[in-house]
């Protein structure tokens, strides 16, 4: 221990200690000489004898130093210093290498941090890997809801799943005490906590009896308990109003309880047991038996589904069961996207490695003689290999520091962008994630440094030394390795470019699509109306008061209401009988969206009326019923006739003579984002109370649309207040600028496009730098040869062609492989494309053209230099 400490201390006193030792040895020798002189020796003889008795001064100093410090560490430190010196000699090389690797490491790390959170990190339930979501399937839907009776049969018959619960995500209004509060919550069966392996923070879960009798009991979320009830344990037994029905609070959910994962859950109530097989409204969650594989359970449930199909063909024909691990449910569709992005980022890193490897190799060849001389002077082969590796590893380490910084911002950006589309847990900075850039640095350092180091290991000392300065060309092995790296780099770049090109093209297509609304200067909000507004007259009064109250605000141009709005995932469809057009089948009408809107809806939405007129003040309940259809509906029903003036009737209308006159045609709107094709839609004015003769009631969800003259975000508090003026108990959802609501629909392709595009640009820059560097190096290397050719009468043109041919040959081979790679990966990206196929010829061609241009320029510049070599100079250079 003590010696170790002494050595450590000595590290910091190196210079002084060296000086002292030299002093001490000098004194020693002086005294020895003096003694020898006293014995009568001549000055020269005295000195010689003293030196002989002492032994080698250098060896003594060396042995002394070895004892004083840490020899292995110090030689490593020497290597690092040597590396730094060589970086300073060629700062361009070092900067390019570091930047190249940093970009790759940064990109990979930032995406990995999201992947880790979403795909790798454990869900907050005990043994969460055994939790599976249980969905019904139909011919077209893989993750459908199921009926309570089917669920009960699954639950009874399964042996591979221990415990199964059902849930339905829902939104609730909590009113009564204090401000009305909209919350997300669940209707569940009583087994849920048992299946998930959690228990209430306080209180209890409801039991089977309470579920059967649909007792109004509720568990409230920990967050809700904290903010609304100040964590008062007395809340148990208290009565709260949930959607205006009194519920007794029997428990509080554990802190952080979110189900489905990452979806806030503030209320849990019993799910109603509907005695039917045809109404699907719940999903299952179950725990896989230990030692049972998912595929085995899936087989069992397939058999159960077939049994139910045979027993109840009327309701269960074509119905299956689909087990999905909960983790997969939690990562959803982003899973594939993230893996694609991770792959792309890793490609960038590999391209960077190939590039830096090539640079190190090129430098290594240039230094071969230097290294050979050092070996001849006694440096071990291992020592030199270690030095090369130290060089590339230090490059990679510097790069990883930079990369970690990039990742820090990158992952923040990624989370912000993704969370607009998808419930995401916050991604906290964790030290463990730093292991990624460091690991990547080690990996890339080895990848870059190993090939040249291996070259060095295998090279024969004598051969290298024998090559004189003029004949300093690379060995055949080095050339082959360099070419291989170049081809790999080119291939990876072309693959990445094509992927990004495809995404870019489909993104441009998406952007060109007219959404059909003017989302700027508009605010939207959703309201879940309470039971008080079941009565149509009261409802209409409320809607009118609401619209008037909001429209009266300064800065508001127009306000309107849409019932059952498509932007909340609603959007009822109806069947219609159409005048002069036959029904599509004997017992069905024409299907179209059924949109009940208030008077100024089209103005507030910014939806232009294409033909005919808008609804106006004359369209009262007493006036003839009117409708406006969208372009798609007009086109489908009356392909070559004018829709305005035609009549339609709701198929299930009890009043068979209740015809609606079409008074206008409005432009199509893509509510659910540009990707989703518009469907036929018919709009009717709410003032005419279209539901009065329909056999069902109106949905309680309405959307408020407000067109503003000022920045929409600034209007939000005023709009909120204006709503509460009309009804202080009315909760409001999603009050936000409309472009934000629509942006979210378009956000996902935008993010992928932006990221993949960035990666592709980085890759192209790296690759072009690599092509340029390698070509330039080849010219330097072949200087003598080219000089000789010129001297022997080759024209500069021929030289140019010679160099270009070699460089471009590698690029062509690489690009060919890259094309093959892109074709092979086509299926993976196909899901992200819109309007083009994964083998879109023009994209492939465009990318090849782009790449060919870049590669040609990058090869041409050094080649031109080669053609202008002065032969006489070429012979002289070393």
């Amino acid at each position: 221990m003590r010696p170790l400490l002494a050595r450590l201390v000595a590290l910091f006193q190196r210079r002084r200690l060296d000086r002292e030792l030299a002093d001490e040895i000098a004194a020693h020798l002086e005294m020895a000489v003096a003694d020898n002189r006293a014995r009568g020796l001549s000055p020269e003889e005295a000195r010689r004898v003293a030196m002989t008795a002492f032994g080698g001064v250098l060896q003594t100093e060396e042995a002394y130093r070895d004892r004083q410090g840490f020899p292995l560490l110090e030689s490593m430190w020497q290597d690092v210093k040597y590396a730094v010196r060589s970086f300073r000699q060629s700062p361009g090389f070092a900067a390019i290498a570091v930047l190249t690797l940093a970009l790759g490491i940064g990109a990979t790390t930032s995406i990995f941090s999201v992947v880790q959170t979403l795909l790798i990190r454990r869900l907050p339930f005990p043994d969460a890997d055994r939790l599976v979501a249980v969905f019904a399937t139909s011919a077209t839907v893989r993750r459908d809801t199921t009926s309570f009776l089917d669920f009960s049969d699954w639950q009874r018959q399964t042996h591979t799943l221990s415990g199964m619960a059902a849930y339905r995500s829902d939104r609730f209004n909590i009113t009564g005490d204090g401000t009305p509060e909209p919350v997300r919550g669940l209707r569940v069966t009583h087994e849920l906590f048992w299946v998930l392996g959690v228990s209430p923070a306080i209180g209890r879960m409801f039991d089977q009896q309470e579920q059967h009798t649909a007792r109004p009991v509720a568990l409230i979320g920990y967050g809700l308990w904290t903010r609304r009830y100040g964590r008062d344990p007395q809340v148990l037994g208290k009565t709260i109003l949930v959607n205006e029905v009194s519920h007794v609070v029997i428990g509080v959910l554990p802190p952080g309880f979110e189900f489905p994962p990452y979806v806030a859950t503030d209320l849990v109530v019993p799910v109603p047991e509907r005695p039917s097989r045809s109404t699907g409204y719940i999903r299952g969650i179950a725990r896989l038996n230990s030692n049972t594989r998912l595929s085995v359970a899936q087989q069992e449930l397939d058999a159960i589904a077939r049994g139910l199909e045979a027993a109840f063909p009327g309701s269960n024909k074509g119905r299956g069961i689909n087990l999905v691990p909960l983790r997969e449910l939690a990562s959803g569709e982003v899973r594939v996207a993230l893996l694609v992005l991770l792959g792309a980022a890793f490609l960038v890193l590999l391209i960077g490695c190939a590039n830096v490897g090539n640079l190190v190799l090129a430098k290594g060849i240039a230094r071969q003689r230097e290294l050979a001389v050092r070996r001849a002077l006694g440096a071990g082969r291992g020592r030199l290999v270690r030095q090369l590796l130290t060089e590339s590893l230090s490059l990679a380490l510097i790069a990883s520091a930079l990369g970690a910084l990039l990742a820090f911002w990158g992952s923040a950006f990624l989370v912000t962008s993704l969370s607009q589309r998808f419930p995401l847990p916050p991604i906290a900075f964790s030290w463990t994630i730093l292991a990624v850039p460091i690991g990547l640095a080690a990996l890339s350092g080895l990848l870059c440094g190993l090939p040249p180091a291996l070259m060095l290991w295998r090279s024969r000392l004598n051969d290298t030394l024998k090559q004189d300065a003029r004949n300093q060309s690379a060995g055949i092995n080095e050339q082959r390795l360099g070419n291989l790296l170049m081809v790999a780099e080119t291939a990876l770049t072309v693959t990445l470019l094509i992927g990004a090109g495809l995404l870019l093209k489909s993104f441009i297509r998406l952007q060109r699509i007219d959404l059909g609304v003017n989302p700027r200067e508009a605010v939207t909000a959703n309201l879940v109306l309470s039971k008080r507004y079941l009565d149509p007259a009261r409802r209409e009064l409320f809607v009118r008061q609401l619209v008037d109250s909001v429209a009266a605000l300064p800065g508001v141009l127009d306000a309107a209401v849409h019932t059952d709005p498509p932007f909340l995932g609603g959007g009822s469809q109806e069947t219609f009988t159409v005048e002069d057009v036959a029904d599509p089948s004997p017992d069905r009408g024409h299907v179209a969206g059924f949109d009940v809107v208030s008077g100024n809806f089209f103005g507030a939405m910014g939806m232009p009326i294409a033909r005919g007129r808008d609804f106006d003040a004359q369209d009262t309940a007493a006036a003839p019923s009117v409708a406006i259809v969208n372009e798609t509906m007009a086109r489908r029903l009356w392909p070559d006739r004018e829709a305005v003036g035609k009549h339609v009737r709701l198929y299930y209308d009890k009043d068979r003579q209740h015809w609606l006159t079409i008074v206008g045609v409005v432009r199509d709107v893509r509510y659910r984002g540009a990707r989703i094709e518009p469907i036929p839609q018919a709009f009717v004015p709410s003032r005419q109370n279209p539901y009065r003769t329909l056999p069902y009631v109106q949905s309680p969800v309405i959307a408020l649309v407000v067109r503003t003259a000022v920045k929409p975000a600034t209007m939000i508090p005023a709009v909120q207040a204006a709503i509460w003026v009309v009804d202080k108990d009315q909760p409001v959802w999603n009050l936000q600028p409309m472009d934000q609501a629509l942006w979210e629909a378009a956000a996902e392709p935008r993010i992928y496009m932006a990221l993949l595009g960035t990666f592709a640009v980085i890759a192209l820059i790296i690759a072009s730098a690599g092509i340029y560097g390698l070509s330039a190096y080849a010219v330097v290397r072949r200087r003598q040869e080219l000089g000789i050719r010129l001297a022997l009468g080759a024209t500069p043109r021929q030289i140019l062609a010679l160099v270009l041919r070699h460089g471009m040959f590698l690029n062509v081979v690489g690009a060919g492989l890259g094309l093959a790679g892109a074709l092979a990966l086509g299926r993976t990206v196909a899901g992200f494309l819109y309007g083009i196929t994964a083998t879109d010829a023009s994209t492939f061609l465009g990318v090849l053209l782009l790449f060919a241009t870049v590669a040609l320029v990058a090869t041409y510049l050094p080649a031109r230099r080669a053609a202008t070599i002065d032969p006489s100079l070429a012979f002289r250079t070393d």
Partner: protein
Amino acid sequence: MGADKSDVLHGTLDLMILKTLDTLGPLHGYAIARRIEQISSDELAINQGTLYPALLKLKQHGWISTKWAASSTGRRVKIYAITRRGQQQLKTEEIDWHRAAGILSRFFKLSKDAL
């Protein structure tokens, strides 16, 4: 130096240095070297230079201490002195050495008698 001079037994140089300093008190490096040569009657084939790494090792263990002082001729020299820990170490090593030497000599005697 003759071929009959013996190499320093492993680890014995340390012991010799400690013993020298213990007997003669603080000395500089050259004096220690000379002293060891005299006692061993020039029968040891060591370079004086090897003394210095050995001195460093002893110092790292805390068995000797150093300070700078002026020599009899007025030259600045480093003076080595044994520490209390060094004396303890020397005692232990001496006992060990005697025990080992004793065992070895008994062993030699025994084999002679037995044959």
